[in-house]
């Protein structure tokens, strides 16, 4: 009888332990990752920031950005040196294994670069200058670029994702996307549905500059609407809202909530309105520079920054952020002037305005504000809201189907003007809806020289022309805001990569 009683009580006790919310809280960090369902758990095939962030928690790269010192340090590499301006030699860290036990070595690095350069990879366009990797021995590689690449270390740090070759070959792309494997501080456990993903601490993690994860489990949840993120936080169902997915309109409410805390930091993210100056979408109206200038004058950026971003953003005039190397602030500006916008439209042959399809997937309030401003000068919009469907939205954009689109770009956390200018202003790139041959060739030249003064000059000239041509409406640069349970120690960083492995409880 006594044995039975002890058994029942033991089971009872264990059940309480495993199902208790307080216990679960200390064991698990629950992060509301955003509104886009988690489908492609492969950072090479999506531009979704949430996957990039998760990758840097489950995976590593040869180099790592120390967010406190703001410098790049070795991670999966032990050391590196430039053999010549086009060759870097890396000594790789020994004894590192992927989560499935597969060893990390030179073969894995070579395999990864080949994979990332394949057609279909969305990072391949950044790696075109990465010519090849020579394997010197199991733990030494030489990376060769076709020309001196000024952003090579940034690219290696942020997007040279390291894949396990044997596992990837065995399960294929689809298999990997269902169960990603890396070397990082957290390891994948399950992906119950597109709304929830679970990781556990990697007990064998080598540490390195990231250090071991402090909270045993990491759970990422997806909420279909931004307001639900706040509900989850207030009701204790989530501990943290991922940086930049938080809707700033909720800030006054958060400020009055004693259980919550806000952390913010300036980041590189830029918000802008793209207009189809090339007529790719079949809409010709934006081929006329006067129309593009009219749109620039029609939009009240100050109001957007104040109300949609609650002043956690700065008005932008140039296409780059002040954090990009090569940022040029002294460009042509288009003050808010609806009367001038109407005049320009009339001059362009649209005295009664026109109607345009307007696509957006971020900041609904800012998008609505833009639509209202345009309507005030006679441009009616068919507002196509694609919130929570960033991948589909961006794919449509790349396919040339969006005559006018509100976009945000975090530059893959590469602090160089090329990271935002090359994908959108080099002729024939998928994201280009307007450029000039001069701008395009200047950007190509900037990508192939390591003379930083020369590059700065090229970026500056290109930004001035882009502003004069009014290809975009640069709206603002935003700040990363993390809203969290006040008992959680967590800091967002300037590269917009949330390091959940560094989070801890008070």
């Amino acid at each position, binding site marked *: 009888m006594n044995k039975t009683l002890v058994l029942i009580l033991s089971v009872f*006790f264990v059940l309480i332990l495993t199902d208790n919310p*307080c216990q679960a809280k200390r064991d698990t960090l629950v992060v509301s990752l955003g509104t886009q369902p988690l489908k492609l758990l492969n950072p090479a095939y999506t531009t979704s920031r949430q996957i990039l962030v998760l990758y840097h928690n489950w995976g590593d790269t040869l180099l790592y950005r120390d967010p406190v010192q703001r410098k790049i340090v070795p991670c999966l590499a032990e050391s590196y040196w430039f053999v010549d301006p086009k060759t870097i030699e890396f000594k790789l860290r020994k004894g590192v294994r992927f989560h499935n036990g597969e060893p990390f070595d030179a073969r894995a690095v070579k395999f990864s670069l080949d994979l990332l350069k394949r057609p279909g990879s969305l990072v391949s366009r950044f790696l075109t200058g990465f010519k090849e990797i020579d394997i010197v021995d199991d733990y030494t590689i030489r990376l060769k670029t076709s020309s001196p690449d000024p952003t090579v270390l940034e690219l290696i740090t942020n997007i040279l994702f390291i894949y396990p070759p044997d596992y990837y070959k065995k399960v294929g792309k689809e298999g990997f996307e269902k169960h990603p494997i890396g070397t990082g501080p957290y390891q994948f456990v399950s992906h119950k549905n597109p709304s929830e993903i679970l990781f556990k601490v990697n007990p064998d993690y080598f540490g390195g500059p990231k250090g071991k994860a402090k909270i045993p489990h990491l759970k990422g949840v997806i909420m279909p609407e931004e307001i639900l993120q706040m509900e989850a936080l207030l009701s204790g169902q989530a501990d943290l809202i991922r940086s930049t997915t938080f809707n700033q309109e909720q800030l006054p409410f958060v400020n009055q909530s004693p259980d919550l805390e806000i952390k913010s930091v300036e980041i590189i993210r830029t918000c802008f309105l793209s207009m189809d100056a090339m007529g790719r979408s079949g809409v010709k109206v934006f081929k006329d520079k006067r129309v593009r200038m009219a749109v620039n004058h029609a939009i009240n950026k100050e109001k957007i920054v104040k109300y949609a971003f609650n002043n956690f953003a700065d008005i932008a005039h140039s296409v780059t952020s002040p954090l990009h190397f090569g940022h040029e602030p002294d460009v042509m500006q288009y003050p808010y002037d609806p009367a001038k916008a109407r005049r320009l439209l009339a001059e362009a042959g649209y005295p009664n305005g026109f109607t345009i399809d307007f696509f957006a997937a971020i900041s609904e309030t800012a998008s609505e504000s833009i639509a209202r401003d345009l309507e005030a000068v006679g441009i009616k919009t068919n507002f196509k809201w694609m919130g929570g469907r960033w991948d589909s939205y961006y794919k449509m954009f790349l396919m040339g189907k969006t005559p006018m689109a509100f976009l945000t770009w975090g530059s893959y956390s590469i602090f160089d003007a090329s990271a935002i200018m090359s994908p959108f202003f080099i002729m024939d790139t998928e994201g280009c809806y307007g450029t000039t041959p001069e701008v395009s060739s200047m950007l190509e030249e900037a990508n192939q020289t390591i003379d930083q003064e020369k590059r700065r000059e090229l970026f500056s000239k290109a930004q001035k022309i882009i502003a004069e041509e009014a290809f975009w409406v640069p709206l603002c640069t935003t700040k990363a805001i993390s809203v969290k349970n006040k008992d959680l120690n967590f800091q967002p960083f300037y590269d917009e990569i949330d390091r959940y492995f560094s989070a801890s409880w008070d």
Partner: protein
Amino acid sequence: MFKIKNHILFFTAAIAFIVLASPSQGTLAFKQDKVKALYLYNFLLFVEWPESAFDEKDCICTAILGDDLLFEALKPMRGKAMKGRKMLVERYENLKDLERPFHVIFIGSSMKALVPQILDQIKDEPVLTVSDMERFTQMGGMVFFRNIGSPSDKTGYPKRFEINLAAVKRAGLKIRSRLLRLSDIVYNP
């Protein structure tokens, strides 16, 4: 004897753990009120009133009738800026004390008997009527907080509100799409 003591100790520890570690009903209720306050705040943000709904004081006013906990949860927002206006939140115990103009009225369940009278008094005025009482929209109210705080299930997140769009339109109000997406729409006269 030693074994029995062990069992008692074990049993006591288990009970103590349950008592200490489980969130109290009070905590849960408080969280529920915070969430209700959050949604009320969002209705203030994402509902558009006609300009005629505002007087020279240019305040946006919320009246809370019969829900003291919700009032306490929303009280810290008093005096804050809301779309360029000052936010006011007031608690009322009687219908006759209500001061005009107000833009949102939340009617707590304890006031159920007064609902027809309240709705009649503000009929077709630009006032958003909100409640967490069952059948509120059938009674002619505009917004029923139905599944506030419910976690997701296999089919996703349950809709948070029921919105009587006919009543909303009659009052000259517009509810933005982000709230409508969280709602089941009903058209009750």
